[in-house]
C-alpha cells in the first residue's frame, strides 16, 4: 500500500471559489492499496476538498474542459495526465480558464 506525503494543491483562476476560496491546500494522502495517480487523486479531491458543485470542477473521471493541471509547474499533458503517479512532495496546481477576462 502506498502513502503519499507533502503535497500542496493550489487552485487559481476562479477554481478556488469551489474550495471555500482557499487557494492552497497542504495534504498528506492516506494509505491505500491503489496507487496515487492523478485519476485517484481527483476522486479524493472530489470527496474531501470540493465544497460545492462538483460538475464545475470535474467531468467524468477527469477535470472539466477549461481547467488546466500543472504538476510541479509543468503541463500535465507532458506527464501522462490522469496516469501520472504522484511522487512525494509533488505539487499540483489547478487553474480555471473559464469565464475569465
Amino acid at each position, binding site marked *: 500500500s502506498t502513502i503519499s506525503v507533502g503535497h500542496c494543491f493550489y487552485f487559481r483562476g476562479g477554481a478556488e471559489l469551489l474550495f471555500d476560496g482557499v487557494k492552497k491546500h497542504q495534504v498528506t494522502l492516506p494509505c491505500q492499496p491503489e496507487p496515487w495517480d492523478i485519476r485517484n487523486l481527483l476522486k479524493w479531491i472530489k470527496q474531501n476538498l470540493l465544497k460545492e458543485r462538483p460538475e464545475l470542477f470535474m467531468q467524468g473521471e477527469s477535470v472539466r474542459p477549461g481547467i488546466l493541471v500543472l504538476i510541479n509547474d509543468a*503541463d500535465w499533458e507532458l506527464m501522462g495526465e490522469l496516469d501520472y503517479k504522484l511522487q512525494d512532495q509533488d505539487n499540483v496546481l489547478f487553474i480555471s480558464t473559464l469565464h475569465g477576462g
Partner: protein
Amino acid sequence: CPHSHPQPCVKCKQGSASLIIRVGDAFCRDCFREYFVHKFRAMLGKNRIIFPGEKVLLALSGGAASSAMLRQVQEGLSRETAKRLRFIPGLIYVDEGAVRRQSLAQREKNLAHMETLLQATGFPYHLVHLEAALELPASILQPGMRGSCEPGPSYKEAVEGFIQEQRQDVNRDGGTSLPCLGTQDVPLATPHLPTAAQTQKLLQVFEAVETTTAREELLQMLRTHLIMQTARTRGYTKVMTGESCTRVAIKLLTNMSLGRGAFVAVDTGFVDDRHGDVMVVRPMRDYTAKEIAFYNHFFDVPTITVPPLFTKRREKPSIRHLIEHFLLGVQEDFPSTISTVYRTGEKLSPDPAKASCEEERCLLCLCALDIAWGE
C-alpha cells in the same frame, strides 16, 4: 501516450519542456516566453494600426487575458529602441461588483487591490463603476466623427517622423529622453463607491432582464459604452481589449446563435471601428486561454478573480455558457477545434456591419440593421 521522462523543447532542443501548445509542440519556459512576447509584437506590427504617440486605452478586467495584455504592453514599451512599442497607454477598470453580487466591503477591497495594480504600472488609470453607465449622455449611442478629413501620414511615414523627433529631443537635452508617458493625465483619485440609489437603479435594470443570455449582452453593452465614453472624453483614439482566441471562438459561435452572424467580423476581429472616432483593437485574439494562463503563472502576472454575473435561482445557463461548454468539450478530443473556428472568423468581411446611413444603424450596437428597406 504517457511520458515518464521529461521531453526536450521542440524549439531549442535543450531545455526541458514545461508545456504543450497548439497540437503537440512542447516548449521550455524560455522559448515559450519568446514565442508569447513575439506574437504580441507581430500582431501589432503586422496590422500597423497603432501609430506612434497615439493614446491607447487598455480595458482591464483583472482577468487572465487582459492582465497578460497589460504585461505585454509594459514589456513592449520598455524594450530597446528599434523594437519598442511607441504608443501612450492609459488603463481603465470597470467595477461591476453590483451585478456580480459583491457586498460594498468586497467591492471596496476589490477596487483597492485593482488600484494598487494599476498604480504600480505608472500609467494613467481610470476606475469607473458600472452604475455610471446609466448616466451616460445620449451621444454615446452615436458613432463619433473621425479626427480630421485630410488623409493622415502613412504608418511608415508616422514611424519615421516619430523617430526623427526623438533624435532631435536627444540632441537638445544632451541625453536620452523617454517617450512622454502620462504627463497629460494625472491618475484619478478612486471615485467613491456609487450611492445606494445608483446601485439600486442598476440592479433594477438587470433584474428586469429575463434571461441570463440577455443579461450578459446588457452587461457587455453598458461596459463598452462606459469604456468608449472614457476614451472619448480623455482623448484616446484606440481601445485595446483582451479577448483571447478561446474567447473569440466562443463569442463567434455565441453571436451566430444570437442572430449576429452578419457582424462576426467586427464583434471578434482584430479591428472594430464601428464607433468612428475610437477604434477597438483585440491584440490577444491569437492567444489561447491555456497559453495565457501558463504565461501568467510562469511570469507572475498579477490577476484578480471576480465572481460571475448573478443569475436568478433555477435559471438556465446562457447561450454563451452552452457554447463554451460545447467548444471546450470538443477541443479536448480535437485540439484544433478552437483555432479552426477562429480562423474561419478571420475570413469574414466587416462590410455587413457598416450602415450606409443613420436610420439604418442599430442604436445599441451601432451595426447595420439587417432589414431590407422599402420591401
